[in-house]
C-alpha cells in the first residue's frame, strides 16, 4: 500500500467510507428514483410553506383581496384535503426548483434564465420569438410573484384545488356561495398555461424541433426551464418529476439522464457543477469511469423503467 504516514490512512479511510455510502445511495436512487428520497424535516417545512402560498394565491384570485393569510388553510390542512399526491408533488417540485435556482446563482452569479430564451427573442419566426418572450415573462413572474403560483398548476390539479378552497371558504362563511362559484368559474376559464414557465418552455421546445438541440442539453445555456422541458420531451417523465430527479441529493439519476443524451464526460462534469452549484460533495465519487461504462441505449431503457415505481 505504501502508506508512510498514519494520517494518510485516515484520509484514505474517510474517503472510502464516504465513497461506499454515496455509491449505495446512488445505486438506490437509480433503481428506485421515486422511492428513495425521504424528505428531511427542513424540506417538509418548505413544502408546507409552498402549499400555504399556493392556497393563498388561489384565495386572493377568488376574493380579490391581498390578505397575507389563507383563510381556508386551517380547514384544508386539518381535513387532509391537501394530502393529494399531485399537490404534494407540485409543492415539492417548486421547493426543489427554488434550491436549484439558488445553486446556479451562487455558483456562477448569473441568472438562472440562461441565454437561449434571450437569443430566441430575435428569432426570425415570430411565433417562436413570442413564445420566448412569454417564457421570460413567466420566469420573472414565477420568481418574483407568489400571487400567481396557482397558474403553475396543470388544469386538472388547479380544478381540484380551486373547488376545495371554495368549499373551505364557504364552510368558514368567508363569502357567499354565488359569488365564490362565479369567481371560481372565472379563475378556471381564464387559466393561462403561458404563465407557467415549464409549460411554455415545453411548448417552445416542441416547436423548435431539432434546432438548438445542443444548447437545450446544456442548462447553463438553455436555463433550467428549457433544459427540463427538453428532457421531458425526450423521456416523457414529466417536468416536475425530472426537476426532483435533477435536484435529488443523489447525482446518479442525473447521470443517467445525461448519458441518455449521449453527452461527453467533460460536458457532464460542467453540467453537474452548474446544477448542483458548489455543493458537489455528494456527487458519485470517481463517477467518471461509471459514466463512461454506461451505454446510452441501456441508460434510456433504465430511464423508461423509472415509470415502474409509479406503477407498483
Amino acid at each position, binding site marked *: 500500500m505504501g502508506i508512510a504516514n498514519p494520517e494518510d490512512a485516515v484520509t484514505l479511510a474517510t474517503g472510502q467510507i464516504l465513497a461506499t455510502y454515496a455509491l449505495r445511495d446512488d445505486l438506490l436512487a437509480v433503481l428506485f428514483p421515486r422511492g428513495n428520497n425521504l424528505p428531511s424535516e427542513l424540506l417538509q417545512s418548505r413544502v408546507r410553506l409552498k402549499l400555504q402560498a399556493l392556497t393563498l394565491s388561489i384565495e386572493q384570485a377568488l376574493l380579490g383581496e391581498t390578505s397575507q393569510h389563507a383563510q381556508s388553510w386551517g380547514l384544508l390542512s386539518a381535513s387532509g384535503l391537501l394530502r393529494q399526491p399531485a399537490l404534494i408533488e407540485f409543492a415539492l417540485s417548486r421547493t426543489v426548483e427554488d434550491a436549484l435556482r439558488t445553486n446556479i446563482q451562487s455558483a456562477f452569479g448569473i441568472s438562472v434564465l440562461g441565454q437561449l430564451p434571450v437569443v430566441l427573442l430575435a428569432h426570425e419566426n415570430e411565433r417562436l420569438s413570442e413564445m420566448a418572450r412569454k417564457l421570460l415573462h413567466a420566469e420573472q413572474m414565477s420568481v418574483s410573484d407568489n400571487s400567481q403560483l396557482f397558474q403553475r398548476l396543470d388544469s386538472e390539479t388547479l380544478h381540484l384545488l380551486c373547488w376545495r378552497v371554495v368549499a373551505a371558504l364557504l364552510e368558514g362563511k368567508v363569502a357567499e356561495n354565488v359569488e365564490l362559484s362565479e369567481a371560481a368559474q372565472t379563475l378556471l376559464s381564464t387559466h393561462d398555461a403561458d404563465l407557467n414557465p415549464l409549460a411554455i418552455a415545453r411548448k417552445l421546445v416542441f416547436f423548435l424541433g431539432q434546432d438548438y438541440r445542443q444548447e437545450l442539453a446544456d442548462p447553463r445555456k438553455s436555463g433550467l426551464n428549457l433544459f427540463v422541458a427538453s428532457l421531458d420531451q425526450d423521456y416523457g417523465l414529466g417536468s416536475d418529476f425530472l426537476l426532483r430527479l435533477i435536484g435529488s441529493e443523489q447525482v446518479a439519476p442525473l447521470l443517467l439522464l445525461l448519458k441518455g443524451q449521449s453527452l461527453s464526460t467533460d460536458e457532464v462534469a460542467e453540467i453537474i457543477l452548474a446544477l448542483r452549484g458548489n455543493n458537489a460533495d455528494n456527487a458519485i465519487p470517481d463517477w467518471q469511469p461509471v459514466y463512461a461504462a454506461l451505454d446510452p441505449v441501456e441508460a434510456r431503457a433504465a430511464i423508461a423503467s423509472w*415509470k415502474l415505481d409509479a406503477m407498483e
Partner: protein
Amino acid sequence: MSEFQSFLAVPIKACVSRSGELVSADPAIWRLHNLAGGSDSKTIAIPGLAALAASALRTRMRTERPVRAADEENDIELWVMATPHSDSVDLLITGWRDILPPTARSVREKSVILNKNDSGEILIDSEQRVVRLPSSFSVRGIGQHFGSLFVVESDARGSIPLIDALIERRAITQVPIGVIGSEERYLIDLTPQLASDGRYLGHVGRVTAIADVAAYEPSTPARSDLPMSRQLASVLKQPLNRIVANAETIGSRIHGPLRDNYAEYAQDIANAARHLTELVSDMEDLDAIDRPDFSAARDRLELGDIARRVGGLLALKASDHGISLVLPQETEKVSAIGEFRRVLQIMLNLVGNAVRYAPGGSIVTISIEKQADFAAISVLDQGQGVPEDDRERVFEKFERLGRSGDGGSGLGLFISRRLARAMAGDLIVTDAPGGGALFRLTLPAR
C-alpha cells in the same frame, strides 16, 4: 411529414363528443384514428387525444399540451389545444412532428425481436409508450409507442379489443397481436394499473409467443427485473471488492504499525463496503424473484441442520453484540421441502436482524417444529418486538420502521417473504413469548 416540420401552416381540427366519439375531424386525424383501429363514429382510437378531451370536459377548462400517437411505423407528437363545450370538445392541432428515438435513428431495423418464440412481461405507460419488453426483444423498443411496435387485430365484430381496452382502461386477456416487421405472433394479456389516488398509470401484462401457447397460463403480472441493475452490479462489484481488500490490508497492519483507532477506521470501511456488496446482491435477488419464470428448487431439507449452520455463521457477530444464540439440539430434526440456499439466505437475514436489533445481553433463539402439513423454523428475540399494526408493513420494500443508520437496506424481509412464498411457504411475524419478535418461516413438510 418531416421531423423538422413542427408548425402546421393550417391547424388541424377535430371534435369529440362527451361520450368520447370522434364526431368530426380533418382527414389527417381520421387517418390516425383508422390507423389506430378506429372506425367511423366510434370511440376515438387515439388514446392521448381521448384522454385530453376527457380531461377538458371534466374540468371545463381549456387545456393545451403535447400528445403522442402512433403513425404507421413512427411515433408522432402533436401540439393540441382542447376547448370544452357543454357536450363536446374542440381539438385544435397546431404542431405535428415525427419522433424517432435517438437509439433507433442510426440503425432502424424492421423488427425489434431478438429471439423468436419467447415470452415475457410488458408494461405500457399512460401514453401507450412501451416501458418494458420481454428480454427477447431489443431494448430499442423501449420508449416507443405501442402502436409502432405491434400490429393489433380486429375481432369478428370489427372492433379492436386491444385499443378499446387501452382507451377505456380495462383489462384484456389472450388477445392476438403481431410484431411490425416480423412474422411472429403473440397473445397479450394486460391489466390497468391505477395509483392510490385513482390516476391511470398504464397497463401491465404479458406477451406469449404463439408457439409457446400450450405452456401459457395467465398469471398475475409481477414486476420483474430492472434492466440496469445487473449492469450496475457488474460495474460496482469489482471496485467494492477492491475497497474491501484495501481496507483489510490497512487494518491488518501488514505495512507496519498503526494506531488502534486507525485500524478500526479501516474495519469500518471494510464493513461499509461489505454492506454495499450485500445490497448489490439484494438487487440481483430482486431481479431473480421478480422474474415471471422464477421458481425455487424442491430439495429435501433438515431444518435443525440449517439452524445450526446459521448459528455457526453468525456466532461471532452475535458475540460482538453481547448476544447469546440458542440453537436446536443435534437430536432435533424436522424435515421440509425447499431450496437449501434460499432457506439459508432467509435465516441469515432473520437471525442477522435479531442480532442487530436485540439489546445486548439478550438471547436469540432458533427453534424448529413440525405440524400437520408444514414444517416451521422460527427466530425469537428479546427486543422491542414489532407492533401489530406494522406486522405486514415490515415486509414491504424499503420499510425500515423508522430505523436508519444501522446498515440495513429495508430489502431483506421483502426478499425473504417472496422467497418463502416461492417455496410454497410463508414468513410471518408475531409476538415472542415474554416479549420480543418471533419470525416464523413455514415450508411444506416432507
